[in-house]
């Protein structure tokens, strides 16, 4: 236990020191983590020397990350991006695989060349996505192309995992396969494994698709937040164990679970529950890459490894640049696209391990290649920096116009917090105006029904910063708060003002007192939730009493204006009197009296002065 805590302390302390420093030097957090890893690793200060334990950490960091990557991969988003994913991504994997495979085939048996080609075709989702996000490039068009390729690579892992075992014993078993067919399944470990693997994946799909919803709903109904976090972690750890049991990468399993759950209304909640764990574990993952750089090996094979790293990056970059040309990306985007993806990926660690276990690749070779991949990943953020310093300044001009477009598109995003009786009608109105809000609600029954009608509704406690973040509060223009609970509204307003000062706020107030409290916070768009109905019903009443309909309407309109005009005055009085009253009830009554006095002063004569003016001269 103490040993574990000490190790944890070293990891976290290294991150706490290195990451802010790296960011300050504009190096990005990924590079900070990697450097921290080298420093505390066996070849730095040697604070952690147990490589095995480091690798253990690594595995779970990737597991978490891939679950989240999967969560962001809505099947509908996948469908929307099918052309770039299949086209650009597919071409990237095939072309890079062919180039690297052919280069290896010169020195190695073809099975090994195929395995290495497949594994090195992949890039680092973790480093690239993290860096793109930090640079705010995710929603630009090269950013989207890069994302598509990474998605395809994530999917390509599944067939690669299936193919690798076949490469090991291909020479021996091909004949057996031809002669005996299905009967000999038990004697074919590769095939048996494949079937077990498919069964396990099927299980994840079925549970994620049909089992998770009632389960999460029941947990959500208990309204104990930690239980939800616990459920999310249970899910991930459970899948990891299942995958390990069938001899598969846990990362792959949770990735699939993520995709299955990406369409679920509990996505944001899951995302925000896992996010802090992921953040930490991803950091540890990067640290462990840094720490796992085997400098002894690198020293021994220095020139060979340097050559291999250079070859890897150059081959990948050339292939990527060619693809960018084939798919007619604008000239200014090709280089970014090529630079972004020209490294090995974290999947390579898992896959090399897998290949070694399956006796596809000898240990000496995988050790060298793991070092090559790790170094190329270490260089990836540096390549981004190089791009920023050397190439981007020359492309500046072309870049500016596109940016304006993005703002135009993203400018309409609205978050609707609370989708009860009030929020529902606001949502309908917005949709009729062509604005589709992202809706957050804490009532699991609401969420369920609304999603069936095609609303984008997410379950969760809206006063949680992480949920707001995943709902896109950083890019949104407006948040509409229609919570029944006044305390929650105030909390949310404070949270938004503190973290998203650019976000405009429109809020309902349960009553006048609540409105005053919101005014205290400097909110200007406040509506008392029953006031509109009171006025309309009042107008109806006047009409029923025989008032002329337009007269009744004008009275309502003028009354509303007078009420609005008197608001600042009442607000001031309310604040002055606050200390004088012992109880809220007393204050409420005093405020009411003040209100009535004000009303008596209202000059309704103004109502139709112009239309009824008696002109003595005419």
């Amino acid at each position, binding site marked *: 236990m103490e040993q574990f805590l000490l190790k944890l302390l070293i990891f976290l302390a290294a991150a706490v020191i290195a990451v802010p420093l790296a960011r300050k030097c504009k190096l990005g957090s990924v590079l900070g983590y990697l450097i921290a890893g080298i420093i505390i690793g066996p070849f730095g200060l040697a604070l952690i020397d147990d490589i095995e334990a480091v690798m253990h950490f690594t595995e779970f960091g990737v597991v978490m990350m891939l679950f989240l990557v999967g969560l962001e991969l809505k099947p509908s988003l996948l469908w929307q991006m099918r052309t770039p994913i299949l086209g650009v991504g597919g071409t990237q994997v095939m072309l890079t695989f062919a180039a690297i495979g052919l280069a290896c085939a010169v020195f190695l048996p073809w099975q090994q060349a195929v395995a290495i080609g497949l594994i090195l075709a992949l890039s680092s989702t973790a480093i690239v996505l993290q860096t793109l996000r930090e640079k705010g490039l995710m929603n630009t068009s090269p950013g989207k192309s890069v994302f598509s390729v990474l998605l395809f690579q994530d999917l390509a892992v599944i067939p690669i995992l299936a193919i690798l075992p076949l490469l090991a014993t291909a020479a021996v078993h091909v004949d057996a396969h031809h002669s005996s067919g299905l009967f000999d399944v038990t004697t074919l470990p590769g095939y048996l494994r494949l079937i077990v693997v498919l069964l396990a994946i099927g299980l994840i799909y079925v549970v994620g698709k049909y089992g998770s919803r009632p389960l999460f709903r029941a947990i959500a109904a208990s309204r104990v937040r930690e239980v939800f976090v616990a459920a999310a972690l249970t899910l991930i750890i459970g899948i990891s164990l299942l995958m390990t049991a069938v001899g598969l990468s846990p990362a792959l399993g949770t990735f699939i679970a993520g995709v299955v759950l990406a369409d679920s209304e509990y996505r944001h909640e899951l995302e925000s529950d896992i996010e802090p764990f992921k953040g930490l574990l991803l950091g540890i993952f990067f640290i462990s890459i840094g720490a796992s750089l085997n400098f002894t090996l690198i020293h021994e094979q220095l020139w060979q490894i340097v050559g291999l790293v250079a070859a890897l990056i150059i081959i990948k970059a050339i292939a990527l640049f060619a693809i960018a040309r084939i798919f007619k990306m604008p000239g200014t985007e090709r280089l970014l696209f090529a630079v972004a993806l020209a490294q090995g990926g974290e999947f390579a660690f898992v896959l090399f391990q897998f290949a070694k276990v399956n006796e596809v690749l000898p240990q000496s070779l995988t050790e060298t290649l793991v070092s090559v991949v790790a170094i190329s990943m270490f260089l990836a953020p540096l390549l981004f920096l190089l791009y920023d310093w050397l190439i981007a300044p020359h492309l500046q001009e072309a870049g500016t116009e596109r940016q304006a477009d993005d703002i135009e598109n993203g400018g309409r995003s609205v978050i609707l917090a609370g989708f009860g009786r009030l929020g529902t009608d606001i949502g309908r109105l917005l949709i009729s105006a062509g604005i589709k809000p992202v809706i957050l609600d804490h009532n699991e029954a609401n969420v369920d029904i609304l999603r069936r009608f095609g609303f984008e509704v997410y379950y969760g406690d809206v006063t949680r910063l992480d949920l707001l973040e995943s709902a896109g509060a950083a890019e949104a223009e407006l948040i509409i708060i229609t919570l029944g609970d006044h305390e929650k509204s105030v909390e949310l307003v404070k949270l938004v003002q503190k973290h998203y000062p650019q976000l405009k706020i429109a809020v309902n107030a349960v009553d006048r007192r609540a409105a005053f409290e919101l005014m205290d916070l400097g909110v200007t768009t406040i509506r008392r939730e029953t006031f509109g109905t009171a006025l309309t019903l009042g107008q109806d009443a006047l009409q029923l009493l025989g008032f002329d309909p337009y007269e009744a309407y004008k009275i309502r*309109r003028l009354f509303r204006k007078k009420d609005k005009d008197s608001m600042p005055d009442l607000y001031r009085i309310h604040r002055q009197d606050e200390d004088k009253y012992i109880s809220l009830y007393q204050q409420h009554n005093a405020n009411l009296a003040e209100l009535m006095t004000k009303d008596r002063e209202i000059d309704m004569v103004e109502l139709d002065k*112009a239309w009824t003016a008696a002109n003595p001269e005419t």
Partner: protein
Amino acid sequence: MNKILILFGHPAFRRSTINAALRKSVENLKGITFHDLYARYPDFLIDVSHEQRLCESHDIIVFQHPFYWYSTPSLIKEWFDLVLEHAWAYGASGTALAGKITFQALTAGGDFSNYQPDGLNLFTIRQLTTPYRATANLCRMEWLPPFAVLGIHQGLPKEDRICHAEDYRKTLMALRDNQLDLAKARNYELLNQDLNSIINEV
């Protein structure tokens, strides 16, 4: 220097490129207050005393609007109905607007030939805007013929829009700086039919 109040009324402003051009060319000029009535009173509840104070504090009052059914958009008519009160705008003691210069800046779909006795609309712009002239008269104001941009249904080319906007700006600046020959302008069919002849260069 005169202070100019532009009372602007367009219920679908976003779709009017010509009004956008006119507005843009003048709204930031010194001495000019651009008052968008539809933006200020979307519910038609006009703040009468506020409007009266505004008028009192300016020397020239311009109504800029599209020419709807030979008249103004309804909010400007509502404005007349409510703001021009007896004993303020007219009547024995109603002298708040007396002596102030006023004119309409209007945009119309038909072109100049449509607004002729033998044209589609049977009457000239000057004839059709006589109710406005009569209003100005009752309020003892200095009336000027309308500044009109005609023929916008045929689609004004961008160069023409820029030209009109520039004329509008010149007209307002000349009025602001007392460089417009009021007597001469009053006899024109349109205020902007021959700007150079009524603007005195300094």
